[in-house]
């Protein structure tokens, strides 16, 4: 292998890090503009209320205040669009407005705004706005919200049902359940989570009246989509009238994919006032007004034969979508959840029924993993429940039901036309078991129990769906996404041989600038330092759908790869011309074009790029410059998989859980930079484990968020964890030429059930077979109190 090619797959350090570590990176809050004004938003303290009147007169007179507006002042601005509605069913859509006009359906909905010379003044003036509310009864539980007599949130959504959706085969599943040797039923809660990126949301909008053009800086994972939705859907102006820039974005975890009212509000304000306006979210606002994730109430029925073969899975889920719909809310608990319920197993009969429900709570949308953690939790708990019921080893039940390697591409039927691309599920499990030393562990566990110490082991053999794209599958004719989901790239080799890549996807911590540069350097045979990767500005990057669903590499970087192949082809033509050889005789290797067998006489890519740019002598008909733009719409999604194992010890007296070991085997296909993949896996595990043990948003019955700050909402801390033991198997995907699957979410998807399974295993001597998350010490203690603990 040529030296330069090895760059793909090497652990080079992230080029993003020096600017991030030294604090030089410019986040939204760092941006200052001449004449900048600051906005503060008045938010409803009630979860469900009619707004009878708003008096802003006092606030308007407060020194330093420039303007105060309420919802009615923006009656001409359209509500936010709901861009992903559940496929092929009716969606009863209600979305937020820039400011609500006469009704609020969750605590934290924006109803008025103060614009002032500084943020403190704006905040002071908020206290001078008087609002007269008629408080209405609230409902916060998605299941209760669908029952008769529940408060009704929206006229067009009877029983608060935004969407009712099914997948799979109902009759066959019911029949299989009837015929099964055993049927296990379980109700399980996948609790609501608050994404908590380090940087909260923010936006600056600057409107230029003379040209009717906006420049909008925002903390977004998808700047192109934001521009499209804001211009075409919210303001009804040509897309060309707006430039959207996402500066350095401090994490998103999905919560920064969406078009939020505040972004449109800033655009509307700067158009009204004629000065740039900035809003930076406080953490308190972030907790009530930025989207949350998960929040399912699910009943499952699993049918199995006595030998552990699973024959049927029936799932009924109430998915809480909040008071109004966020941008892609209906797609998450439908397509990305129901269609992944087969997991790594051959399950001949599956039926999933989902209600997407309005409640008087904050909006719920994609959060790292988005739908797949919920599906993985259901299926990985289900397997353990079957094992428990039949008295079988959970590992044996997994093996019994795994889709075997020879069955790929595998059609789990509920995927609506897509097939799992490639997988070696047992191989990953075996590697994980070997690292654990499974047999020894069971002996140790038995010994410990005799001494009154409770060890448990939990497994999660997951598969997930990444690189979400095929436009025809995901789009309106299929899964209901209101657009395509291809990605784009432009690659230019400048006169000096330096390469500039622009991409429509966005990086907010993932390290794209490094991994994309590695692919370019590897393919072109140049130094990685000669490549720069630009993104996050609609000016100067080709349209792309953004970063989420672990798609930037499996879709976006494949577009880069495709452009590189076309550039190499052109370089060969020009190189042959320069060498006075026939094009069919030359090869491109290690950054050089030469006649096959004669590498001594060669033209480097730098020389060829120079010649292409100078254009003094080009083959007949060839255009100057090495430049190519690709749009890549993959034929399939990709399906990373693996096995995670968690070992815990539960203290019988206090219910405290100590994670003793955490083993993760992930197969994300080909790996471009192992260090970046490990970082993603580590971060994902931490978030997934946190759902199992610590995190959980709690609303009281009146719709007040009780976990509204970091004092109450327990995000994980580094010292909660042991050192992770990670490894990989590598099963390239046949879907794309790079063989890459996606690595951004595997940790979050896999880890949650592994931990809960471990705690339940530890508590097995007490007859425990299920516990709802977060599995906190107080909850465990209570269970033990009732079970002879």
């Amino acid at each position, binding site marked *: 292998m040529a030296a330069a090619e090895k760059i793909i797959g090497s652990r080079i350090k992230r080029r993003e890090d020096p600017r991030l570590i030294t604090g030089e990176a410019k986040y939204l809050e760092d941006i200052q503009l001449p004449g900048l004004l600051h906005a503060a938003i008045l938010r409803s303290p009630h979860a469900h209320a009619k707004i009878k009147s708003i008096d802003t007169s006092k606030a308007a007179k407060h020194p330093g205040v420039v303007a105060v507006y309420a919802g009615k002042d923006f009656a001409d601005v359209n509500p936010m669009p709901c861009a992903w509605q559940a496929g092929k069913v009716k969606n009863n859509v209600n979305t937020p407005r820039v400011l609500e006009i006469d009704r609020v359906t969750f605590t934290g909905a924006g109803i008025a705004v103060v614009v002032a010379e500084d*943020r403190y003044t704006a905040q*002071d003036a908020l206290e001078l706005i008087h609002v007269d509310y008629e408080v209405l009864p609230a409902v916060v539980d998605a299941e209760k919200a669908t029952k008769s007599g529940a408060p009704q949130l929206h006229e067009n959504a009877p029983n608060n049902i935004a969407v009712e959706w099914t997948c799979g085969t109902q009759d066959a599943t019911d029949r299989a359940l009837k015929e099964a040797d055993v049927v296990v039923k379980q109700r399980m809660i996948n609790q609501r989570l608050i994404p908590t990126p380090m940087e909260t949301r923010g936006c600056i909008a600057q409107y230029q009246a003379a040209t009717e053009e906006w420049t909008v800086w925002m903390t977004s994972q998808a700047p192109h989509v934001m521009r499209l939705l804001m211009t075409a859907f919210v303001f009804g102006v040509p897309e060309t009238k707006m430039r959207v820039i996402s500066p350095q974005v401090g994490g998103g975890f999905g919560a920064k994919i969406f078009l939020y009212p505040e972004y449109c509000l800033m655009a509307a304000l700067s158009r009204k006032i004629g000065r740039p306006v900035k809003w930076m979210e*406080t953490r308190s606002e972030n907790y009530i007004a930025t989207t949350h994730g998960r929040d399912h109430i699910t009943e499952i029925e699993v049918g199995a034969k006595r030998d552990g073969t699973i024959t049927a899975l029936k799932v009924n889920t109430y998915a809480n979508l909040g008071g109004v719909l966020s941008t892609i809310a209906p797609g998450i608990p439908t397509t990305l959840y129901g269609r992944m319920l087969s997991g790594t197993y051959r399950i001949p009969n599956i039926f999933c029924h989902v209600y997407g429900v309005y409640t008087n709570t904050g909006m719920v949308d994609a959060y790292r993993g988005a739908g797949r953690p919920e599906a993985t939790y259901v299926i990985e708990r289900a397997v353990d429940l079957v094992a428990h019921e039949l008295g079988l080893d959970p590992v044996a039940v997994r093996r019994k039901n795994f889709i075997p390697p020879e069955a790929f591409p595998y059609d789990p039927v509920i995927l609506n036309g897509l097939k799992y691309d490639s997988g070696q599920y047992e191989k990953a499990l075996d590697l994980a078991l070997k690292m654990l030393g499974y047999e020894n562990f069971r002996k140790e566990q038995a010994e410990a129990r005799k001494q009154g110490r409770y060890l448990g082991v939990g497994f999660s053999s997951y598969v997930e769906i990444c690189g979400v794209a095929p436009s025809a599958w995901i789009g309106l004719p299929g899964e209901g996404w209101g657009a395509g989901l291809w990605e784009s790239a432009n690659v230019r080799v400048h006169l000096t041989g330096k390469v500039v890549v622009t991409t429509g996807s966005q990086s907010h911590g993932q390290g794209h600038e490094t991994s994309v540069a590695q692919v370019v350097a590897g393919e072109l045979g140049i130094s990685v330092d000669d490549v720069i990767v630009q993104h996050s500005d609609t000016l100067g990057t080709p349209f792309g759908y953004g970063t989420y669903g672990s798609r930037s590499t499996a879709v976006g970087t494949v577009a880069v790869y495709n452009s590189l192949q076309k550039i190499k082809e052109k370089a060969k033509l020009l190189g042959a011309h320069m060498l006075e050889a026939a094009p069919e005789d030359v090869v491109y290797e290690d950054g050089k074009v030469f006649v096959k067998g004669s590498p001594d006489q060669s033209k480097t890519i730098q020389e060829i790029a120079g010649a292409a740019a100078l254009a003094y002598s080009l083959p007949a008909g060839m255009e100057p410059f090495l430049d190519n733009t690709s749009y890549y719409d993959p034929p399939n999604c990709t399906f990373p998989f693996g096995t995670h194992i968690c070992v815990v010890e539960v203290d019988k007296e206090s219910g405290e859980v100590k994670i003793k070991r955490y083993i993760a085997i992930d197969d994300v296909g080909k790996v471009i930079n192992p260090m970046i993949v490990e970082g993603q896996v580590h971060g994902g595990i931490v978030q997934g484990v946190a759902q199992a043990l610590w995190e959980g948003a709690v609303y009281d019955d009146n719709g007040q968020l*009780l976990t509204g700050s970091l004092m*109450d909402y*327990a*995000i994980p801390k580094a010292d909660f964890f042991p050192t992770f033991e990670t490894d990989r198997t590598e099963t390239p995907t046949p879907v794309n030429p790079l063989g890459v699957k996606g690595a951004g979410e595997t940790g979050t998807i896999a880890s949650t059930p592994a931990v809960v399974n471990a705690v339940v295993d530890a508590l097995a001597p007490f007859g425990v077979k299920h516990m709802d998350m977060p599995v906190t010490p*107080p909850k465990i*203690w209570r269970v033990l109190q009732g079970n002879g603990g």
Partner: protein
Amino acid sequence: MYPSNFDYQRAASVADAIQKGSSDGAKFLAGGHSLLPALKLRLNEPESLVDIGRLDALKGISVSGSSVKIGALSTHAQIATSADVKKHAPALASACGQVGDPAVRNRGTLGGNLAHADPASDPPTVVLALGGKLHLQGSGGNRVVAAEDFFLDLFTTDLNPGELITAVEIPSIGQAKSAYVKMAHPASRYAVVGVCVVLEVSGGKCSKARVAVGGATPKATLSAAAANVLVGSSLDAAALDAAAKALTSDLSDVMGDVYAPEDYRRAMAGVYLKRAVRAALG
């Protein structure tokens, strides 16, 4: 996250601080790690902050006779690493080392912590168990108040307006054994429950005991009932179970919240008492 307007004044001396701090709406600012979060949430809107952070008279840790005197401005980190405190009041060094995270420990002060009287704080429990005394100075002069009399209720102390804690005096534990253990809230790391024990042991029997509990109750609380069970026992498993039982039934007014309900906190006081005794015995 945006406090309302306030004046900022830097105190030039203890007397100056007391004078400025006595005016209506004034508040002392020490490490700011309890006060500033409250300001930012507008839960507290003082008219002026009197910064005492540079008053040397409130700094320093010294040993005189059989007690260690800790200046009110000593940070948690300074206390946690002080050789004098480790020697004479090791449970306090340990408790201060368990406060929040390094950033909090480097800024937060013992005086501020005790004055704030957050029920979930760690130091009050330990100062109480160790029989500490607070040196106060106000416009009415100086006084010394025992920890038992200082903490009155949730966020409420015996401090008069404008009165400063200047130092905390802790009698050396001598040959006694002590420990502070806490169950940290996973979000804030404040104490869900914290227990401090001080034990004198001779001839394999406990001759003297003090037990204090924090986190679970509106203010740090001494339990004579639990201490009585320990005294005279050989501190074996049965004695610890009995002491735990005595403690859990002795505690009145146990608090509950979304994370840890009242009955759990009560039970954990007992569990952590046992752990504290075991830790003290090493």
